[in-house]
């Protein structure tokens, strides 16, 4: 009889005790905030008791993983103050003594260690599954060995330098060809003038330079 009464008391008292342990602003508890519609939009699943059970299981897994103790179970994660946000508070009790809470710092370490797994379990991210008080570690920036802009600059400056050299070389070659051509032409012209060949007609006599018309255009 006494045993039966004690058993009944335990059954009633345990949840009551659990309720005392888990409450809003519990010193060793964390508030969790979940934004399903923001994360998943149309594919958002409904948050019900089964999902809460899943959360308890995930947290138990996180505690097992961190402390490497196989004794954490779903009952060790106590949830309360659930709202339609969806948000709730949770505390973690020790597997050896259900009245003793695991300190906040240890819970934080466990959550940080398995954060990625917890997020993926619910198809959420650091932003949509928030543990208020546990800040997500920032993603390390991708630092390539050569900054990409340097590569683009290299390509551009290489093309421009190649173009400049090509143009300068071709200008130089053109000038050389022009000079060669002109010296040959000049000599021919002079010879023709001296020999008295004008307009292809062979004139008799020698060319008198005194009457050469040097100024093609009269300058006014």
């Amino acid at each position: 009889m006494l045993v039966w009464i004690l058993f009944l008391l335990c059954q009633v008292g345990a949840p009551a005790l659990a309720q005392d342990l888990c409450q809003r602003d519990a010193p060793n508890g964390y508030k969790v905030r979940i934004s399903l519609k923001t994360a998943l939009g149309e594919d958002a699943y409904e948050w019900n008791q089964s999902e809460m059970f899943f959360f308890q299981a995930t947290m138990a897994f996180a505690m097992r993983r961190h402390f490497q103790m196989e004794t954490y179970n779903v009952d060790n994660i106590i949830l309360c103050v659930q709202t339609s946000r969806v948000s709730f508070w949770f505390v973690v009790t020790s597997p050896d003594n259900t009245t003793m809470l695991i300190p906040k710092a240890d819970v934080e370490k466990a959550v940080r260690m398995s954060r990625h797994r917890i997020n993926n379990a619910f198809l959420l991210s650091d932003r949509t599954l928030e543990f208020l008080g546990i800040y997500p570690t920032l993603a390390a920036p991708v630092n390539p060995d050569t900054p990409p802009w340097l590569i683009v600059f290299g390509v551009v400056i290489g093309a421009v330098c190649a173009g400049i050299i090509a143009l300068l070389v071709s200008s130089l070659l053109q000038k050389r060809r022009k000079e060669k051509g002109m010296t040959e032409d000049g000599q021919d012209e002079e010879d023709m003038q001296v020999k008295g060949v004008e307009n292809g007609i062979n004139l008799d006599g020698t060319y008198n330079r005194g009457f050469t018309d040097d100024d093609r255009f009269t300058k006014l």
Partner: protein
Amino acid sequence: MPEEGMEDNKEGEERPKWNNKAEYLLTCIGFAVGLGNVWRFPYLCQIYGGGAFLIPYLIALVFQGLPLLYLELAIGQRLRMGSIGVWNSISPYLGGVGVASMLVSFCVSLFYNTIVAWVLWYLFNSFQEPLPWSQCPLNHNNTGYVEECVESTPVNYFWYRQTLNITPNMETSGSLQWWLVVSLATAWSIVYICFVRGIKTIGKAVYVTATFPYLVLTIFLVRALTLPGAYEGLIYLFTPDWEILKNPQVWLDAATQIFFSLSVAFGGLISFSSYNSQKNNCEKDAVLVGVINSATSIYASIPIFAILGFKAHTNYVTCLNGNILALTNEFDISDMNITVENYEQWFDSLNGTHPSRVSDLKLKTCDLQTFLDQSASGTGLAFIVFTEAVISMPGSQVWAVLFFIMLFSLGLSSMFGNLEGILTPLHDLKLVPKWMPNELFTAIICLLLFLMALIFCLGSGNYWLEIFNSYVGSVPFLIIAFFEIIAVAYIYGIGRFSDDLEFMTGHRPNIFWKVCWLVISPLMLFVVLVAYVAVQAQTPPTYAAWNPDYVNFPNTEVLPYPDWVFAICVLLSSVPVISIPLVAIYRLICCMSGRHSKDSLHNNPNPYANEDYVVELLL
């Protein structure tokens, strides 16, 4: 270059010629259409009552812009020399106008190509995923984001810190930023490669640089009109506010905008038209260039403002979403129950039931109009506002690359005119030694400009660039243009000028042009000059400094110019134009001393005068 076809000018030298008319027109259009058409005109349109601004703008174009343009193209084409040679020919006393043009072109080339270098830097950085100005970098122990970035915005941080590495004030010069030096070297190399063979290579380059911006603007137009918020942006831009026309500042800004936009008084247009054959209809060219320049400004403002409307809309939605999240978290309302549409109702009901809790949240007031009012012009528009808008567009890299290539083409084609305004006068003054090939001379000038422009790559470089932009790129041009028009209309003589125009175009200029050259344009220029100087004198010489330690950071700190800087500002405004009176005085002195010598025959040999037959009348 004998195979390209030569024409002799008065000195009997070979003057290069344009391959075809299209190259000449595209070069002039490219010179006139520059960065200002994209980032200055839309801003003016916005602050001066949208569609109403077009009235003073078009009036200024017709009565001031087109006559000046026609004048410059005509004298260049007729006298077939660069700016110094042309003004020496018109009147030796006004040779200083050409020198002033050249000096001003020199100073403008310095800072203009630095802006092109900044555009190149952003272009190089646009080939990354994600864009570097879309997120803050982490601080050195990876615990959080860099504080300066968090307090301002990632876009501001990228511009002021990672690009300029700006110092808190002008006295601190900082050091040379190597990445900016590299970009500047690239910019000058590209300018040099286009100038290597003078107008031959420029003529080829402008087929791309002058037409590409129009292609990009059209692409942006199509894209921007499909973005949310574009419609609001366009309405905001074009809604006319007729009351604004009563403000004289509007008329002043319209006149200065047209003037600086057409790039007259640089000497570049004179140089370009001097390579034409004399029998070219420069009247049609001038009207075409002027009208296309203004049309481009108006056309460019449409996609710019559609995108700014989109940006304002995005900022508005972000602001509202921040408030929604705060309310949702505070009152544990179901996720996504409060939306942008029903925010007002939720806010009113929550504020009614729990006013103290709502006020504790310190929600921001989100007003679309405030976001639309956040306008910017100049580098602020391109490097801060537009880059922020581009992040929110899907496929940001493509839009960023297109945008910066467009800005690069606009800047490069304007640089052609700037540099031409320096090189051609130097050639005409015969300052180039005979043994030096043109390519080497151009290279030396480009190298010299690059080395001098390194001051803009210092930490305080942006502050110096603003000074150059405000003091060199404004008043000297107005003064030069005023002297240009007085010189041609009154000293050269409108009759002689009309004869030249008849020779070139086949008909005398009609009454409109004559009235403009004689009365309207000089008057308008004089009024604009006086008003501009008066307004500048009234505004205290201050600058906006980016100081992370400032109390009101991220607002910029308004600091006064140090005295030595202000002295430099005054020098920059006055030294280019001081050559006008200096040369006049020098020529006057020479002329006076010339008259005192024995015969005038030595100064002005007349080949037909034979002294032996002069009968001296002794009365």
